[in-house]
C-alpha cells in the first residue's frame, strides 16, 4: 500500500471513529450526563471536545493529503514520512485529549495529555513535509522540459 493510500484509508476510518465520538458527546449532552456536563467535569468536557475536533480535522487532513498529493519519483521517502507523521498525529493528538479527559485531575487533564504535544509536533512536521512534496510535484509538473527531477537532499547524499 503506498503512503497516500494509507493516509486515505486511515483518514476515512479515523473520520468515522471521531465522528462517532462526536455523536457520543451529543448523546451525553442529550441525556444531561453529569459525568460529562457537571461543572466539576469541565476539564473532561473540554478535553473530549478537543479530542473530537482534532480527531476529525486531522482525519480530514489525511484525506486531503491523499487526495491532493501525488507520488512523484524521487519524493517517495518524503511522501512516506509526511503520511506517517500525519497518521500518527491523527492518533496521538485526539487520543491524548480523550485519555486526558477520561482521567482528568481537577482542572488538569490526565497524564495522557502528554501525547498531545508529541502529536502536535508530528502534525506540524507532516504538514511541512506534505508542503514540500507538493512543491516538488509542482516544480516537476510545471517544467516538463527540465533535465531531471530535483533530488531531495537525502537522495543526493545517498547518490554521492
Amino acid at each position, binding site marked *: 500500500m503506498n503512503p497516500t493510500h494509507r493516509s486515505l484509508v486511515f483518514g476515512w476510518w479515523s473520520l468515522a471513529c471521531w465522528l462517532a465520538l462526536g455523536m457520543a458527546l451529543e448523546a451525553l449532552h442529550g441525556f444531561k450526563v453529569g459525568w460529562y456536563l457537571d461543572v*466539576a467535569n*469541565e476539564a473532561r468536557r473540554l478535553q473530549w471536545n478537543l479530542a473530537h475536533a482534532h480527531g476529525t480535522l486531522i482525519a480530514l487532513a489525511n484525506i486531503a493529503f491523499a487526495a491532493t498529493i501525488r507520488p512523484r519519483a524521487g519524493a517517495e521517502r518524503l511522501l512516506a514520512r509526511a503520511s506517517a507523521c500525519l497518521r500518527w498525529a491523527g492518533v496521538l493528538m485526539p487520543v491524548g485529549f480523550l485519555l486526558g479527559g477520561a482521567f482528568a*485531575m*481537577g*482542572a*488538569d487533564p490526565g*497524564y495522557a495529555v502528554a501525547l498531545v504535544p508529541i502529536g502536535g509536533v508530528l502534525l506540524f512536521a507532516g504538514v511541512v513535509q506534505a508542503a514540500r512534496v507538493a512543491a516538488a510535484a509542482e516544480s516537476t509538473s510545471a517544467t516538463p522540459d527540465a533535465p531531471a527531477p530535483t533530488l531531495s537532499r537525502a537522495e543526493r547524499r545517498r547518490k554521492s
Partner: protein
Amino acid sequence: MNHGILAAVTVALPALALLTAAVARRKRFAPTAAILLCALCGVATALTIVQRPRPIAERDVTDRPIETPAAGYVTSTTCRACHAREYATWHDSYHRRMTQRASPQAVIGDFDDVTLTRSAETWQLSRDGDDYWIDMPDPVVAPGTRAGRVRRKVSMTTGSHHMQLYWYETGYSRVMGLLPFAFLNQEQRWIPRQAAFIQPYSETVQLETGQWTLVCIKCHATHGRPRADMDQSGLHGADTQVSEFAIACEACHGPAEEHVRANRDPLRRYALHASGEGDPTIVNPARLDHRRSVEVCGQCHGIFDLKLSGKALQDYFVQGMPYRPGDDLSKTRPTTQKGMEEQFWPDGEARVAGREFNGISSSACFQRGDMTCLTCHELHQHTGDTRPRDEWMEDQLHTGDLDATCLRCHQAIAADVPAHTHHEVGSTGSRCDNCHMPYATYGLLKGVRSHRIVSPDVATTLATGRPNACNLCHLDRTLGWTADTLHTWYGTEVPNLDADDRSIAATARDVLKGDAAVRALLAYGLGWQDARAASGQDWIPLYLAELIDDPYEAVRIVATRSLRKLPGFEDLDPDVLGTPEVRSRAKAEILDRWRSTLAAPGDATREPLLIAPDGTVRDELFARLLRRRDQREVRLFE
C-alpha cells in the same frame, strides 16, 4: 440597550433588506445598495454600543465599601479558572452570600413600596429599576429639632439564609448605615431588626452607622480593610476596601497570588499530582495540623479578645485583621470570656450560635483527639454526594452516617451501640449528636447544636441553667427522672434535687422560670420533631402560648414557628410583634384552641407538666414559677 432604539433597529433592518433586494434587481444599483446596507448595520451596531448601560467601575464607586484586591489576594474569579467544582459549590453556599451588593439577584426583601414602622417612625422602601431605596427619618438631627426625611440608596446586603439585613449609603464617604428592619426568609416578612436577636425591647432604633466598616468587615468579607478615619471622638469617615465581599476562597485558603503564579508551570502541577503532596503555596485546611485547621473556621466562628490597643488598634482600623489561614490564631485573636460573660453559660460553654470554635476547642475530641470542623462538615460538596445542593447547603455536613464518624474513635461503643445508648439502634435517641451535641446554643431564631461535645448531666443543668440533652428530647420529664436514669445507666451521681425538680418537668420549669435565652431554646425545642415524637405534643400549646407573650420579641417569633408545626395550629399567625393587648388576645386564642383539642382528660402522666388529670392547668404552680422567672436582661451578640 434603549428599548426605543432596539425597536427602531428591529423594524428598520428588515425594511432595509427588502428595499435592498428590490433595488438589487437592477444590477447596477447593487453595489450601492450593499454599501448602504453595511453602513446602516454599522450605525445600528454603533448605537447599540453607545446606548448600552455600562456599570460604574468599582473603583469609581464612592458611597460604599469597594472590592479591590490587594496584598496578594486575587479573588475567587481567578480561582474559578482551575477549581471549577470547588468554586461552584462555594458559589451556591451561604458563605458566598454573606455580603452582597444590593441587586435583584441578591435582595430577597420586599421593596415593593412597603412602609415599615417602629417607635412611631416610618421607613418607606421602594425599588427603582435595579436600585433599592429607603425614604427614612434623617439620622442626623440637630439637638432640639425634629428629624426631616432623607432618601438613601441601599447598596449592600448581609445574609441570605435565615434573614437579610440592608445597608444604605449615608453619604459620608464609604460609611454605611443599617436599615433597622430585617427580612425573614422563612416567613417572607419584615421584622424590626432588634426583634431578630435576643435583647430586651427598646424603643430606641439602632442604626449601627459605621458598624460594617468597624466590626462586620472582619468576618463578612474577605481581607477587609476598614481604612477608617478614627480618633477618640469617633468615626469621621472611611475609605473601606475589601478583596471580595463574600466569605470567599481566600478567607479560608489565604492569599493566592503566589499559588497562581507558581502553578502557571505545568510541570510543577503534574509533579504535585504525581506526589500527592499538598501545595505549599496555598493553605488547605484539610491538610493542616488539627489545631491550625480548626482555627481557620475559628477566625470567625469564635468569641475573641481582639487584644487591640494603641498601634495595633490603629493598624486594625487601617489594614484589618492580621490573621491569615495557617497562622496561630491565639497570637492575634485569642478566645476569651472576659467582658463577654453574657455570651457564655456559667461553665464557659458558648450559649450563642456561630461561635463553635469556643465549643470544639474545649472538647475532649479536639483536645485529646484530632477532631476538626472538617470531621463533620465539608465546605465543598463532594462529587459523590447526591443530595440536592439546597439540602447540603443547610449545614454543609458530610453525607452518610455521622455516627460512624464518632465510632471510628469510640470503637468500644461501636462494638455494642445499644449497650451504650440504651436506645434502639437507628432511633433518634441512639444518635451521637442528640445526646452529646444538644440544641443548647441559640442563634438565628433557632436552637443550634452545642459544639462542646459533652455527656448529659443534671448537675451541670442545675449549676448553669443550660438544658441537658435528655430533657431537650424528653420534654415531659423531670430533672429527677433524668438524674435517676443517668445514674442507673451510667452510674452518674444524682445531685441534690428540690421538690420541684422531682415533680415538675424540666421544660415546664424552664419555660416559666428560665432566662430569655433559655426560653428561646425551649421555644425552639418545643417544635423539634424528634422531641415531640418522644414527649407527645398535645400539651405543648400550653407552653408555647406562654412564650407567644414573652417579653422578648425573638422568643415570641421562635415560639410562633414551633406552634405552627403542631397539628391544629398550622393556620395560626399571631401578631407576636404587636401590642401587649394583641399578644394577650393571641395567647387566649391559642389556649382556647388547645383546650378544645386536648384529648383524654384523666391522664395522670401530665402532672409534671402542671396539667391536672381533669385537663385543667395548675394555675397556682404556673404563677409561682412565673414569679420566680430569671428577669435579668440578656443580650446575645450573634
